[in-house]
C-alpha cells in the first residue's frame, strides 16, 4: 500500500495509489489523500491504474476527497484501467457519476486541467 504524488506545474497534482484499498489500506492512506487533494492545485488526478483492489471503504475515501476538491473550486478525476476489478467496483458503486474516470492518463490530465 503506498500513496505518492507529483506536482506538474502550478495547476496540476498527480496522486498515485498502489496496492489494496481495503479496510487496512484505506485507514493508512485516507487522511493523506484528503490532505494531498487539499493543496491549492486546480486539477487533481488520482491514478488507480496500479491499484489491485478497491473495497467500499476505499470508495468512500475517494468520494470524500472528490467532494472536498469540488468545494474549493477544483476538479478531481480518476485514472482506472478498463476491465479491471477496480473498474468493476467504480461502476457498481456509481462513483463514475460523481468523478470523471479515464482509462488514459493523458486524457485525465487534460480533463483535470481544463
Amino acid at each position, binding site marked *: 500500500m503506498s500513496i*505518492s504524488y507529483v506536482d506538474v506545474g502550478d495547476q496540476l497534482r498527480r496522486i498515485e495509489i498502489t496496492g489494496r484499498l481495503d479496510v487496512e489500506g484505506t485507514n*493508512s492512506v485516507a487522511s493523506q489523500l484528503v490532505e494531498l487533494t487539499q493543496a491549492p492545485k486546480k486539477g487533481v488526478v488520482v491514478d488507480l491504474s496500479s491499484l489491485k483492489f478497491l473495497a*467500499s471503504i476505499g470508495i468512500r475515501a475517494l*468520494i470524500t476527497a472528490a467532494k472536498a476538491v469540488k468545494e474549493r473550486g477544483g476538479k478531481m478525476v480518476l485514472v482506472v484501467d478498463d476491465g479491471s476489478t477496480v473498474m468493476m467496483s467504480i*461502476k*457498481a458503486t*456509481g*462513483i463514475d*457519476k460523481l468523478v470523471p474516470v479515464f482509462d488514459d492518463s493523458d486524457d485525465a*490530465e487534460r480533463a483535470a486541467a481544463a
Partner: protein
Amino acid sequence: MSDDPGTRTVIARPEGLGAPSAAPDDRAHYLVVIEGAEPGRRIELGGGPLVIGRSEPAGIVIADALVSRNHCRVELTMGELVVNDLGSSNGTFVAGRRISGHALVAPGERITIGTHVFEHDWRSRKEVHALRALDTDLEKAKRYVRSLLPDPLEEGPVRTDWVLQPCAKLGGDAFGYHFIDERTFAIYLLDVTGHGTDAAMHAVSVMNVLRQRSLPGVDSRDPARMASHLSQMFQMDNHGGMLLSLWYGVCDLGSRTLAFTSAGHHAGYLVGPGRDGATPLDVSNVLIGMMPDYPYRSGRAELAPGSSLFLFSDGAFEIEPANGRPWDLEAFVGLLTEPRDAGKTESQRVLDAVTARTGHRTFEDDFTLVVATFA
C-alpha cells in the same frame, strides 16, 4: 504525461498495523486470532514459551483438523517474537511463507497454521483495555442488528432463508423482507461502507426506515422512489461521511413481476426453476448518501414459478482465498446454479461451498446471503 516529471514524493508505505500511539514501556506482545474458531481471541505472550497445537498439553489449544498436536512454539526472545515449527504436518507460515525451523514475526505480521490465522499485536495494555470495551460495544451492535433481522419464511407464497456471518470488526450488513400487503412482498439488503459500531448503527437507522410498511410521502412499492427518499434522508455530509449500497425489490405476486433497484450495489441474481443460469438484476445508480438529487432508476423482471432470488453483500465474493485459487463475483455466481442439497437451506449450501473453495471459515468482511424462492 507532461514534460515536467516534477518531484515524486513517497509519503507512506505502511505495512500491517502501524505504530500504536501509547508509551512504549507499557507495551506487551499479543497473538490475536484473525481467522479461526474464536476470531478476536487475544493471547498475551511473555510468560515463557507456548506451544500451539490441537490438544493438550499444548498451551494454546485450537480445534483444527489441519493443526498437529504440537504444531509450533511461540516465545519472546530479547523482546522479539520467535516462532518455531515443531515438525508439523501442514507447516507454519509467517507472512504467507512456510518456515523451516524458526522465524521472527514482526508486529503486524501474521502466522498461519491450518485454517487459523494469528496476528502479532504489540501495543499498550491500556489500549488493550480500551479495545475490550470497544469489543463489548461491537457485541451490543451485533446483537442489535441481529434483533432486526426477520425469521426465515418456511411456508407461504415466498419462502426465505439466509446466513449473516458478521466479521470480527462487524461490517455494516443488514437485510429484511416483509409483505406490504397480501400480494406485495418487499425484500432488501444493504451494506454500509466501513466497519465497526458506527457502520452497524448506521445500518440500524436505515433498517428502521425500510422496515416501516408505510412511509409518509413515499410509495414503498416504488424502488426508485424508495432509494431517492433514503438518499435524501441519509446524505453523507450529515451522517459522518457514511455511505451505503442497497438492493431493494418489490415482488407483485399477482402479476409475477419484480420491480427492483440497485443503488451502488452489485446485482441480485434470479435463478429460474431449471437452474440453467443466473440472471443479474441491477441498474446503474449511485450509492445512497453520495449525491442528494440523484435520479434513481429501477428495473423489472418476471418471476417464474419456482424461481429463486439471491441477494448478497460484497463480503461474499471479495475474499482473498487462503489457497491461492482465484475467487471473484463470477466464481460466486457459479455456485448459485449448482444443485440443491436436500439437507441444507440454499444459503447454507452456498456458504459451505464458499468455505470449501476459498479455504476460509471466517471472513474479513460480513458475509450475508438471502435467498427468496417464489411458489
